[in-house]
């Protein structure tokens, strides 16, 4: 192994990652038994309990969302969160962001991150659009008044991404609160990555390392 003297702090770390991966692979079988015995029950969007595979994630910070209505006003209280601050009475409380997942991926959960110290609530929707004016809300999840930061998980759902058939947005309804007692901090989608290795698609169980 050689060290890139131009970026001495970086190459060793990368190399170390590969070395560590190799060591971890060698001990994975033994370690997994002990870990399984000791670990707490994972949240349901951490492991696909049906297949045992690990989810992929798409996590979008609240600050990256934009309002659907130009008249809607909003502020940035920090930490990647946004708060609706008002606008005319007809201003939409909706904010949205596109969702780009690999073709064939199956979206399973939508987790909403928020700060909720209000009587109103935030609701997030995983919505698909066919481009002909039709939409389908595949799942939704709402905040609860936790008195601070929190997250809520949607029910399990299954939407297989078909880029040729529909676009996807996560759209958030910020409710009636117009101050920073209610903040939208992000949305995380847990999904099953598309199966690219067809050898293991039928009759074999492929367990990624």
């Amino acid at each position: 192994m050689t060290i890139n003297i131009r970026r001495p702090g970086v190459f060793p770390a990368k190399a170390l990652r590969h070395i560590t991966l190799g060591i971890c692979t060698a001990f994975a079988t033994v370690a997994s038994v002990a870990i399984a015995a000791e670990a707490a029950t994972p949240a349901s969007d951490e492991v696909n309990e049906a297949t045992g595979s690990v989810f992929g994630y798409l996590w979008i910070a609240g600050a990256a969302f934009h309002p659907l209505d130009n008249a809607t006003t909003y502020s940035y209280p920090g930490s990647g969160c946004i708060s609706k601050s008002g606008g005319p009475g007809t201003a939409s409380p909706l904010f949205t962001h596109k969702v780009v997942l690999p073709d064939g991926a199956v979206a399973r959960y939508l987790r909403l991150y928020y700060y909720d110290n209000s009587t109103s609530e935030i609701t997030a929707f995983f919505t698909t659009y066919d481009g002909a004016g039709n939409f389908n809300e595949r799942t939704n999840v709402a905040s609860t008044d936790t008195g601070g930061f929190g997250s809520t998980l949607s029910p399990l759902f299954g939407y297989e991404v078909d880029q040729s058939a529909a676009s996807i947005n996560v759209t958030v309804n910020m409710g009636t609160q117009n101050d920073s007692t209610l903040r939208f901090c992000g949305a995380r989608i847990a999904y099953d990555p598309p199966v690219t290795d067809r050898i293991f698609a039928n009759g074999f169980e492929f367990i990624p390392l």
Partner: protein
Amino acid sequence: MIRNILGVSIALAMCGLCQPALAREGTSEGFPPQEKYNYYNLPGPDIAADGSAALLGGSEYLFVAGSALTPRASSTTITYPGGGCISSTGDFVLTSLNLPQGAEVIGIRLYYYNNGSASSANVALTSYSGSGGSSDLIFGTASGNTGYLSEFFGPATPLFIDNGGQSYAMLASMGAGLRVCGMRVFYSP
């Protein structure tokens, strides 16, 4: 004696095995042969502001136009002078950054325009925990002052993407007379 000869032979053999790796590192021979690497964007590997080469190996770019950035507060106003560039003198503008799990971010190149003002443009790659935490993993200030320019900024420490643990966003801000025209992430999947 035989043991010494054997030892030298083994050492020479090992050096022979190491030679291709040494050549690929390019630390003493300039840039490595281009055909060994998978760069998708000419003119080739990104170069840090201090002149050092980016990491070698399979690397890719993600290039986001300035006009794709949105304000994080509605009080921020944006104008569009054209060419994919934006002008804004308010708070940061940003876009979500979604890279493959485990990818190593080598740095961000900020593309901007300055009409000759003394102002500067800032770029950041920030992570958010969703529960109130945030961290500027890359932060840079570009201060070139004539025409269309770009500058590259790397992380202070090695930066690997953890999509399950936090969200990421690329942010930019600019003073009067400046335009942000894009941000290009250089990463190793």
